[in-house]
């Protein structure tokens, strides 16, 4: 039997901070026909399990815990009376924005005027690391441990090694210590921590938890349950482990905190072009993806450090989606989002570079020193008042300049920074006054020392 899809103006996928802020802003912009879809039983996304404080300093001007930040938005959302499907999983989006949703009432088809992707990110699993050793119990991601402990009150183990010094790993080191576990060490492949200094001091140094930089786990041991891990130092450049200098640490739990990946299976199905560096959709300054009418914000677009930035970005996506719905008579941009990036920023330009000039899109390339940049494109027909670029440096730089240059190498804007680290997403604002006559085929962002 063929089901006729229900029609909804704006569908938002994901009820985390991004989805909630997007829904509220769309309503403020005058839109009434909004539907938010969340697969969990409650709104708030990953914030529900982040019980530490440090959220909302920029957005609310006070330090909240994750659940409190989520509560402010979900209360506002419920009060606003915006339609919402809980325990409902979006299985598919077609390029023309028809969604397949599995909900407690069965399968539904929804035809959306516009879609905002706000599905967040997931953690890199063990398989992605390829650590040899037995597949015993006691190896899990830091986020899974956070969920078990903070939402179900279950201790994942008693003696713990954490691989990866990102903020989630550091925060879990403190949480587990506080609940009575012994954290033997935090092991980091890179020569620097990828977490905030504040977390290194307050989550590790305060409890005398060793941080082993330039080290990795080379083997896990144990039959049913983990009994220990073997560590080895790594070569500073090649990052290959030195197997002549291994050491065994006894532990019953290994937590992996080795990076987050935007959750984009749905986006791929919709034909949305992804960026190899952010692993989220490539977007223009309106946060529009390569598929007209599909927008993205929050961790599904790029991994954010601060939830405050997620909320702000989601509001931008909502304004763009509402503008799109109000002007559907405009021709859809027939631009190619897949060009405009060198395959590897550290290699020489490939054959065919520069790519053919596109009349409507100005690519922003990640040049030397830049790992990723968002947005990756500027739609020339909607030049913004101010443009904000979010980027991650490829390594740690001290006393460096961020330079944005046009296709001829002419400097558009330069900003001096005391420090840039891959652990902290940085931003560059380009005011309208700096906006040059848009001539050349692309712009390039780079770090110059």
């Amino acid at each position, binding site marked *: 039997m063929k089901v006729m899809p229900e029609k909804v103006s704006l569908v938002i996928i994901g009820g985390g901070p991004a989805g909630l802020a997007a829904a509220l802003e769309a309503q403020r912009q005058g839109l009434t026909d909004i539907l938010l879809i969340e697969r969990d039983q409650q709104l708030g996304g990953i914030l529900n399990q982040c019980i*530490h404080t440090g959220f909302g300093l920029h957005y609310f001007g006070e330090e909240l815990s994750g659940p409190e930040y989520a509560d402010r938005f979900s209360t506002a959302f419920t009060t606003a009376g915006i339609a919402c499907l809980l325990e409902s999983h979006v299985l598919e989006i077609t390029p023309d924005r028809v969604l397949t949703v599995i909900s407690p009432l069965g399968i539904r088809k929804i035809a959306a005027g516009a879609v905002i992707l706000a599905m967040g990110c997931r953690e890199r699993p063990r398989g992605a690391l390829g650590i040899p050793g037995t597949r015993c119990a006691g190896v899990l991601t830091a986020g899974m441990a956070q969920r078990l402990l*903070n939402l179900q009150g279950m201790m994942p183990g008693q003696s713990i090694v954490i691989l990866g010094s990102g903020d989630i790993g550091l925060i879990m080191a403190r949480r587990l210590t*506080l609940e009575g576990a012994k954290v033997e060490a935090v092991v980091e492949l890179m020569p620097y921590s990828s977490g905030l200094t504040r977390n*290194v001091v307050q989550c590790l*140094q*305060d409890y005398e938890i060793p941080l082993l930089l330039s080290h990795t786990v080379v083997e896990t041991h144990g039959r049913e349950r983990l009994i220990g891990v073997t560590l080895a130092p790594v070569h500073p450049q090649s990052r290959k482990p030195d197997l002549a200098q291994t050491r065994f640490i006894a532990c019953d739990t290994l937590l992996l905190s080795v990076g987050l990946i935007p959750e984009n299976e749905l986006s791929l199905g919709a034909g949305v072009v992804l960026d190899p560096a952010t692993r989220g959709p490539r977007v223009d300054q309106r946060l529009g993806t390569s598929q007209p009418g599909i927008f993205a914000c929050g961790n599904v677009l790029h991994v954010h450090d601060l939830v405050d930035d997620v909320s702000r970005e989601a509001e931008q996506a909502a304004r763009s989606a509402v503008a799109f719905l109000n002007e559907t008579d405009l021709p859809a941009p027939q631009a190619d989002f897949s060009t405009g990036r060198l395959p590897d920023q550290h290699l020489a330009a490939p054959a065919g570079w520069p790519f053919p000039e596109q009349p409507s899109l100005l690519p922003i390339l990640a040049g030397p020193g830049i790992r990723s940049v968002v947005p990756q494109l500027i739609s020339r027909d909607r030049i913004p008042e101010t443009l904000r670029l979010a980027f991650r440096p490829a390594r740690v730089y001290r006393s460096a300049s961020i330079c944005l240059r046009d296709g001829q190498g002419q400097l558009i804007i330069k900003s001096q920074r005391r420090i840039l680290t891959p652990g902290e997403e940085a931003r560059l604002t380009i005011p309208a006054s700096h906006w040059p006559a848009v001539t050349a085929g692309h712009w390039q962002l780079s770090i110059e020392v």
Partner: protein
Amino acid sequence: MSKPTPDANHSPDSLVSPDSLTTITCTGCPMGCLVSVTQGPGGEWQFSGAQCPRGDIHARQEITHPVRPLTTLIPVRGSRIPLSVKTSQPVPKALFWDFVDQIHRLELERPIHTGDILAENLLGTGIALLATRTLD
């Protein structure tokens, strides 16, 4: 200048004898400057190594009255989900574990709402304990 006495709640690592030296990592930004702390002839604290004025302010705070935010979980009778809580202000570092012990001893029952005050004046410090989740 009178010798600044470390506050009564000093932690062991904030005890600095006149000629010994301690180093404090400034947490103000990713630079993570290492601020060396010494005492001058008159007993006044002296700081060096910070790249901006915030480093000295941070080091002075850490040496005289270090505080830390405290969030934890408390089991609630009849609830599968534990309650997440926070203190109304960061707590003195030296009393951190005393706070944790005191908080973990609390016995709670539903319903509890975000923002509810669960205990007032913990350890006589005037610091309260607040719920950060609703358990109806």
